[in-house]
């Protein structure tokens, strides 16, 4: 059983000297400078007025006349809200499928012994190296055969249990010391009970990681939804945003604004879930 240990907030380990603080923030800022530039450029492009150049030898990061017009225009041009709702439906299905499917499979592969486990494990690993480049059309034919062409379920289906996520969950469950399981087995707990009371509380971090991966994968996917969906009413946000990039009409400011709009939910999901990585740290880790 996971025990909620004492909060370690006041232990010596958590106090930081001023010197260390300065060092940490310096390092944080260095990494920040390296990582955040594309995001800033997108943001600044999306705020630029119509009289400012977009492409230059050296990018300008500060719009001269910042304006929110581009965002308004995006919303006027395409039904952003309904596209976002479609994306959300797909993302929710994919997240739910992975949270359940990958978790239970990961647990079985990590903690239960059964015939064929090794073979299955090998196959899951093999999918990491399988060629995915030439199979998209055959995927489409499969989904169409299931009668799910032009539906959001059809878009969500192939990614609803990601093989990588199964492997990630397996790794997380493996980190739980075997003696905890053994104690529970002696107590007569079934596999399901052990999964619920020992497994799940200790893999919250990885569960939120695969949630993020699943969400972003579903949210950002472009080619697959484009192939599955025909009716523009069903379009997801990534496909719908392409309308800003027309044959004779592409305004990079609008495209950037659209990208920012689609980026926000990712930030929100990430910010909401990142606390969970630290559950173990905050509440005290597994009691050995």
């Amino acid at each position, binding site marked *: 059983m996971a025990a909620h240990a004492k909060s370690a907030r006041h232990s010596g380990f958590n106090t930081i000297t001023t010197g260390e603080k300065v060092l940490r923030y310096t390092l944080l800022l260095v990494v920040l400078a390296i990582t955040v530039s594309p995001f800033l450029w997108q943001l600044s492009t999306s705020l630029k007025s119509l009289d400012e150049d977009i492409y230059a030898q050296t990018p300008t990061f500060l719009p001269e006349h910042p304006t929110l017009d581009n965002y308004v225009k995006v919303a006027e041009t395409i039904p952003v809200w309904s596209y976002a709702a479609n994306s959300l439906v797909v993302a929710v299905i994919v997240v739910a499928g992975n949270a359940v499917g990958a978790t239970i499979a990961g647990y079985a592969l990590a903690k239960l012994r059964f015939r064929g486990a090794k073979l299955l494990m090998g196959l899951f690993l093999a999918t990491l190296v399988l060629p995915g480049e030439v199979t998209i059309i055959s995927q489409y*034919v499969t989904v169409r055969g299931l009668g799910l062409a032009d539906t959001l379920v059809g878009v969500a289906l192939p990614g609803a249990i990601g093989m990588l996520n199964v492997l990630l969950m397996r790794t997380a469950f493996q980190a739980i010391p075997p003696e905890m399981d053994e104690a529970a087995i002696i107590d007569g707990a079934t596999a399901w009970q052990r999964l619920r009371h020992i497994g799940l509380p200790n893999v919250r971090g990885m569960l939120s990681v695969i949630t993020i991966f699943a969400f972003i994968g579903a949210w950002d996917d*472009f080619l697959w939804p484009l192939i599955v969906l025909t009716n523009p009413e069903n379009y997801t946000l990534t496909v719908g945003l*392409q309308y800003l990039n027309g044959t*004779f009409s592409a305004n990079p400011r609008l495209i950037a604004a659209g990208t920012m709009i689609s980026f926000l939910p990712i930030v929100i999901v990430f910010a909401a879930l990142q606390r969970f990585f630290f559950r173990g740290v905050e509440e005290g880790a597994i009691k050995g």
Partner: protein
Amino acid sequence: MRRYWAGLAVVATMVAGGCGLGAEEPEAAAPSANASGEVKGKVSLQTWALKPKFTDYMQGVIDAFEKKHPGVEVEWLDQPGDGYSEKVLSQAAGGTLPDVTNLPPDFALPLVKQGLLLDVSQTDQKLADEYVAGGIDAYRFAGFQGVYGYPWYLNTDVNYWNSELMTKYGLDPKKPPTTFDELVAQARILKEKSGGKVYLMSRRPELGDLFKEGVKLMADDGKSFTFNTPEAAALLDKYRDAFKEGLLPRDVLTDTYAGNAKLFNEGTVAWTTAGANHITSLATDNPTLAPKVVPSTAMGTPPLYVQGLSVSKKTQNAPAAIALARWVTSPENQAAFAHLVSIFPSTKASANDPFFSKSDGTNASEAKVIAFASLAQAKMLQPVEVTDAMSKFIRQQFALAISGEITSKEALDAAVAKCDELLQN
């Protein structure tokens, strides 16, 4: 489907003269294609990246069609620009190709090979009378009888010069180069005056440039490539020498066809080639650059870009599909389209429209006039048989030749060998 074909054959023999299609009656009454022959029922139309800018225009065209033929219901799909080839491919593979689809000729060919498109010359005796030859020829394919699409809108390339850079570095934008050798000479002046900061040339040669030099790219039967000639090698050598002299930025080694337009937008190069609507899009991207641009006629044979509407062979509603394709590509509807954006109609009736030959003095309008004048000589510069993989390989070999890593002859021989191998497979 079989029955429908039989019907077509009967009709083709019956309709000796087709039917009078005056300019007032732009849509065909000809396709009394099958037994019923009435234009009604559901018909689907797929366009490529016209929403949202041309939504009103397209909707107007469709509404007028529905009004003209009561009982017809048009379902209009517009696909985003990116990934269109994959989308059409999956539709074709899944048997869900719309009745009428916007396909450029190089997309149409693979579908023709699979027997998925309708030969519209069977139903339309009048094609050649109404559409310009270049447009129709674009939808004829080596080894296949017939025409597999109604030509829709056309475009070509125009030279665009950055007058500010040219004036600043000792060139006269009113006298831009008109031949390759002049281009190199002016590029030299620009480079020297600007200390190598600015370039005039930034395009790697493509197959089309060989074609412009009179090189025969393919055998007549469309079964082998023939562009490894001494003339082709001579042109590559000229590029190699210019590159060595520093007249082209190093970017050309890894640039795509659109790369020079990008450098032009940045103000790094003073010359690009692009369609007639380029200044308009430039006004959106880089408003300060747009007024400084001067257009001129493309060097050598101007390229011809064709868009068309093809009819699916599996259509359940051939009469309506054919009528719709003719309606969208009718002179009036094309002219209205051309008034919205700088493209050119593929119908002969539009050739005398003063709109295309009159400039209002703005540089965007000049570009339109120049492009329209060029269309008469424009040709498709690259055979449709060239696949993505082939063009990529050709570009790579040309880049090697220009950088001087291999001789031009070696590059051309390797490219021809590879293309032949891919063609046979």
